């Protein structure tokens, strides 16, 4: 049965527990960083950072909104990264049948740097990164080793507020939709004068991001572009995958 992570960003306190726990589990190296005037460090995903908490601050009509986006691979149901990689090295990137988890394998070493760049470019969420030393393309694997052992992914395990949940995709979709319904009901609920002074509803715009196509589902309460350039996608991966799959077909036929 397909597995999913549901991330309710309205419960995230940007503690970075997930960011650090992920590194710990994968035995990653620490990446040299500098303070550049933000809490977001490293500034972007790296071959040693599969999970990154992104910070963005805004001030609207005197109200401060500090938005946290714990970024990671979306484990698309039809991953563009795989469709692109398959053109060059079949099954360098695979989808685990049992769970739907999208995994970059060691075979990604056989891809050239340009091919890796193309794969990264095809990802609507700008996720995979190339390890310059090993030559591998790497990204979040939803802790497939833990999941196969009946455990939850490390980021979910470390999340102390319950912002992150893990389970069957159907259940996570229900949870996400329930959250959306609740949030909208709360915005629409008639409020006392005092409550109106406290609530910041007028700026809110609650959404679930692209849930039809993704294994990792985010709930946001502000417009998506305020969180991160690649929070939601601009191009539907379905179309793009089809397009790329279409390109790949004659090449595969040639190989027989």
């Amino acid at each position, binding site marked *: 049965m397909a597995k999913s992570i549901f991330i309710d960003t309205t419960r995230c306190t940007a503690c*970075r527990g997930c960011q650090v726990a992920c590194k710990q589990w994968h035995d990653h190296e620490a990446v040299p960083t500098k*303070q550049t*005037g933000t*809490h977001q460090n490293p500034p972007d995903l790296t071959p040693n950072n599969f999970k990154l908490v992104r910070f963005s*601050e*805004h001030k609207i009509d005197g109200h401060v909104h*500090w938005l*946290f986006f714990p970024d990671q691979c979306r484990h698309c149901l039809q991953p563009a990264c795989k469709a692109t990689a398959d053109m060059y090295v079949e099954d360098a990137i695979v989808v685990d049948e049992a769970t739907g988890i999208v995994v970059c394998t060691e075979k990604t070493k056989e891809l050239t740097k340009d091919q890796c760049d193309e794969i990264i470019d095809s990802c609507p969420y700008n996720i995979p990164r190339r390890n310059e030393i090993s030559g591998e393309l790497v990204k979040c694997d939803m802790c497939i080793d833990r999941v196969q052992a009946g455990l939850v992914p490390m980021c979910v395990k470390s999340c102390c507020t319950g912002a992150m949940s893990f389970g069957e995709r159907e259940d996570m979709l229900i949870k996400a939709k329930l959250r959306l319904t609740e949030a909208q009901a709360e915005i629409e609920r008639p409020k006392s004068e005092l409550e109106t*002074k*406290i609530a910041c509803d007028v700026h809110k715009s609650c959404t679930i991001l692209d849930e039809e196509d993704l294994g990792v589902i985010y709930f946001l309460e502000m417009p998506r572009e305020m969180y991160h350039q690649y929070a939601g996608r601009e191009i539907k991966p379905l179309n793009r995958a089809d397009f790329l799959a279409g390109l790949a077909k004659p090449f595969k036929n040639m190989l027989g």
Partner: protein
Amino acid sequence: MTQHWIDIKNANAVLIMGSNAAEHHPISFKWVLKAKDAGAKVIHVDPKFSRTSARSDLHVPLRSGTDIAFLGGMVKYILENDLIQKEYVAEYTNAAFILGDGYTFEDGLFSGFDPATGKYDKTTWAFAKDEKGVPLRDKTLQNPRCVYQLLKKHYDRYNLDRVSSITGVSKENLLIVYETYSATGKPDKAGTMMYALGWTQHSVGCQNIRLGCMIQLLLGNIGVAGGGVNALRGEPNVQGSTDHALLWHILPGYHAVPTTAWPTLTDYLKANTPVTNDPKSLNWWGNRPKYVVSLLKGWFGDNATAENEFGYGLLPKAEPGVDYASMFQFDRMYEGKIKGGMIFGHNPAVSMPNTHKIRAALKNLDWLVVGEVHDTETASFWRNPSEDPKKIKTEVFLLPSCQRGEKDGTTSNSGRWHQWHHKGYEPAGESRSMGWMLVEIGKRVRALYEKEKGAFPEGLLSHTWPKEYNADEMARMINGVFTRDVTIKDKTYKKGDQVPSFPSLQADGSTTSLNWLYCGCYPEAGKNLAKRRDLTQTPMQAKLGLFPSYTWAWPVNRRILYNRASVDPKGNPFNPELPVILWEGGKWIGDIPDGGAPPMAEEKGTYPFIMQSEGHGHLFGPGRVDGPFPEHYEPAETPIAKNPFSSRMNNPCMKVAKSDMDLLAKPADPKYPIVLTTYSLTEHWCGGGDTRNTPYLLEAEPQQYVEMSHELAAEKGIKNGDVVVVESIRGKVEAIAMVTVRIVPFQVEGKTVHLIGMPFCFGWTTPGVGDATNRLTPSVGDPNTTIPEYKACLVNIRKADKVTELSV
């Protein structure tokens, strides 16, 4: 905390003030969010908008150092709008008590102040008493000399205009907070206050907390589910540390340290054992002799006898009036009066105020023993980049300490839960636990005393001393044992049996206990209750999230303190939907009651606030040294020229170190017009020794920064990411500018006051990350605790022309 972490979910309103709970107690926010799920309003009052504010319903920016003005305004609002929980206030607090004629308050001073000593004689703060010595009361609260009326008078000056002007909080925001929070004054509503170092680290720190307590008493929020005054304690087991008396001025279990003014045990017990003549007051500190004697018996074993006052004469005595707190220890060290010592798990060369002075003081030592997990700025003070090691005579012994996960032991969380943790790993290399270090050092020093005699060998040799450190045995001894066969009621305990609970502790030497609060945590052999992980609850307990069988809480596994105040004098819960205790079939069910007596209104009933000698919650609080009612004073360094509340600018009793390195900026000093507040981070602990050496954490927060508003940045020509220099009258610090919408300028007393904030965890032993922020902060402290005023001082800021402390 009077409550525990889970109970926060039961609140109808959460006031987070003097705390950045989401960042420094991340797991606590799970419970705050659950309260929010249930409809609670979460309000964060704090100088900057932080990760806590992002998850709160409302953030109210407040100038650092003005909490008393803010809360005083709330008291005035509550009283004027008659929002007190009437029955609770009249019956359970000292609102009705009548003050003697001598008590006055005039222009910032209470009666009894001696300007020569900077101290109060508290005689005039006493209540008027009847012939039995019981305080006189007017439960109608009308008598002009009753506490309620004097309270009203005291906070009359805290009107919206004055409070807004001094705090920089808009009147609109003041009213939003006051109205939202005081709605919890209804008997079936509860509000919780979560606070931490944003309240304590001020020269008026204790009074900040007192005022929070007073508001909770006025609103009937103590003893009830979802209420309480909740101190969020520090990660390095601060709760356990204070319980077991890491601080100089107390003995384990919160007894005063003996002084030369009390040469005998009889003197000590007489001065420190309160007495009441009211039969309904349990006056629990009246039991102090049993706890002190049991402590002495635990320390000196068979060497403690009734004839020698259980060894009291062997204890070192402090000189009355001398302050032995760290700030003054370092002062004496700076003057060359201290030859050597031990610093364990502490990095004063980064975490103490006026760090230039601290680093200078360390150079005067002949020897220093440091117990640490990593090398720190303190252990390596002699090779500080600005020093020449050849000129420093100190011999430093660095003892490698193992990590918490490498040893058995306990931590006590903020909710007083005493929790066992199991050793998961063998200690790396030659590192050892500090328990092991202290036992070994003690053994060898004792052997030297035995061999060489020397001055006063019995001081150490009379102590019982373990052959080796064993955490389980320590837990047993903290609980305590019987020293001979004892029969209590109809049960006979044998010599060596563990004491079941502290009501069984005696003042005759028949019991030991190294901390009465924890007596009952290990009541029998094999029953270390700190190890319990049982989630069983009755339905009533489950509603509260009480989890009474999960670990063990002091005292006597009571999870919500003062819970007799959660029912009315007849025993009916003020909130029938969420009772904490219920009187059923002649006993209380639910939580462990704060005294098992019948409801207060019955003949044998008792008052709820058992730790106060008169059994009532203190609205008028004569216990603190700087006044019975909190009063607004400015921080030692203030950006304004005049205090609008009185002609006393600062706390008249404030502690101040006075060496040549202890300079203070004058009020409204034009050279230093900006307020600096300092704080911790989620990603780094305290002085940073542990976390700067944890690569994944340093990756997430790599270097010293300073948060400032866009307005201040524009004024100074500073852009986000620029290297800047922050300077106070005591020193300067390089930092990376973090220009943010989350900090706003304050309008204070007719002018713009800017505030900036800096973390204090960075130190030079980690190359290129910056060095101690505390080189900026002053050596001034709260007069009750001497906790330094880290949260407000004066600085200026400019772009750096050269960069020496940071790699850019």
